[in-house]
């Protein structure tokens, strides 16, 4: 879609420039897609069309098991973070207590601290406190990656939920309580449905970030846990064959689909909300 072609868009230099930047954003993706069908593994020139990289990719057990690891980690971390992150956001909106700003600061710290610093700190903690204290019971493994991912997932989910909390009507829950509902009932029946869209979009964001994380995973994973980004990184380091291109095309299509679905859900829920009196 080039905006400049439509008669509705006035052609200005900004339009041209934006079109150029669209090209910039999509150039690498197009290149990956084109080369995933290229016969030659090395050359930048076109040597003929082939499906063989896709065949290779779908029969590559390493990539598939890395994908499984990544998905497991992302699902677990997001599920845990969704629960405690939502609770935290609600708690923070409700109470005032000494040390609250400190609590808040810590809770949103992962949004600003670089990944490398978090990764390093978690590794040191796990290697010198958690493992010795547990007598070797805790080992760097898939579980430790999940524990580390939960930290930043909490922050992102709580951030999105807090924004929504600021916009909803506080009287609803109070009304429920007045009508004799227990706090848990009021929370589950009244507050949670109101927050659901925010929780879902927060989870989606956290899920994508968890799937894409390289540094924190590679510092907290034990040998044997191999996430997709770790596998891709080591392949880029050891020299890649175009089956990585095939992988990227598949991943891009998948994330495009997820994104489309998420946008659709959001759009529908907004329409519903608008149609309500």
């Amino acid at each position: 879609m080039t905006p400049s072609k439509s008669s509705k868009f006035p052609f200005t230099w900004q339009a041209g420039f934006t079109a150029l930047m669209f090209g910039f954003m999509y150039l690498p993706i197009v290149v990956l897609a084109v080369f995933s069908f290229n016969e030659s593994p090395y050359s930048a020139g076109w040597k003929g069309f082939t499906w063989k990289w896709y065949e290779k990719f779908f029969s590559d057990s390493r990539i598939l098991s890395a994908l499984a690891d990544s998905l497991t980690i992302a699902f677990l971390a997001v599920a845990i973070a969704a629960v405690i992150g939502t609770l935290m956001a609600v708690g923070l909106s409700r109470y005032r207590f000494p040390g609250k700003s400190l609590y808040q600061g810590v809770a949103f710290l992962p949004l600003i601290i670089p990944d490398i610093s978090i990764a390093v700190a978690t590794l040191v903690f796990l290697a010198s406190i958690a493992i010795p204290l547990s007598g070797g019971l805790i080992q760097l493994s898939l579980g430790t990656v999940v524990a580390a991912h939960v930290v930043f997932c909490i922050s992102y989910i709580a951030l999105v939920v807090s924004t929504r909390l600021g916009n909803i009507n506080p009287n609803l829950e109070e009304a429920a309580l007045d009508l004799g509902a227990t706090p848990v009932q009021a929370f589950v029946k009244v507050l949670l449905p109101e927050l659901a869209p925010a929780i879902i979009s927060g989870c989606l964001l956290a899920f994508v970030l968890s799937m894409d994380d390289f540094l924190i995973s590679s510092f907290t994973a034990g040998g044997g846990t191999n996430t997709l980004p770790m596998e891709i990184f080591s392949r880029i380091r050891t020299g890649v064959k175009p089956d990585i291109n095939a992988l990227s095309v598949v991943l891009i299509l998948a994330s495009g689909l997820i994104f489309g679905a998420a946008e659709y859900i959001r759009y529908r829920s907004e329409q519903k909300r608008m149609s309500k009196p």
Partner: protein
Amino acid sequence: MSSPASTSPSESTVSKDLATPRWLEPFALLGPAGIWLGLMLVIPALLIFELSLVPGIRPGEVVNPSGLENYFQIFREDVYRQVVWRSLGFALGTTAICLALGFPVAYFIAQMVPKKWRNLVLVGFVLPLWTSSLLRSYAWITILRPTGVLNSFLTSLGLPALDILNRPPAVFIGMSYSLLPYMVLILYASLEKLDRRLLEAAADLGANPLQSFWKVTVPQSLPGIAAGCLLVFITGLGDFIDPELLGGASSMTMARLIYNQFLGVTRNWGFGSALSMMIVLAVSLAIALLLKYGDRSSANL
């Protein structure tokens, strides 16, 4: 990150609660996250700080903090100073590039695209963000290689080939590519709210487009500019993937150096911790500067 406390019903809700003990609720809500964050974030951060005070420590040795030697080392030796400056340079350069490229795009989408298309165009622009950041970097390797897509294109036009990969320009390209969508998103949020009447008024008063841009548009979008620059700067400062994959032997940054101290060739955990503290310090400094000198409203973003 403004506190939502002011908008909450707070005490009145709690006092109505008779079924469960009053004190239990806050603990149930804030406890789990508090424990998790305390264990996996606060204690590790304190550990790293302590570790940064031990010069030259390797795994298996006893931690005996003895002073700021690791920090002095960063500033005493030319090569580490160089690494710090290079990291700052990459981050600042990327911020400038993203601002220069992102502003016109955000302005166009926010002000010139018809309203019903706006969201679609914006989403289309930031869609590549949803792909793996490693694969995006890898794609740039394919493009920038000496015999890659770019050079094949250039030589077919009879132009001389460019030597970009494994040099700083490749890092700038990769980082700007990764961070441009963030800049556009934030600038868009701020430019969308731009009061057009002021622009019209400026035009009525005889200002040329350039004048009204500098006198009206820029000041109004300043909070967005500041927030976008801050985000790009701090993300760029901590970026590991782009310098590592695109920079080759020429572009050691702080993040790469930290990685090498822990999982790479040299294993000096104390020095790595000090470097990590330095990055955190630099990020905090950038945020503090924004809070102090930036517009109040930008702090809320």
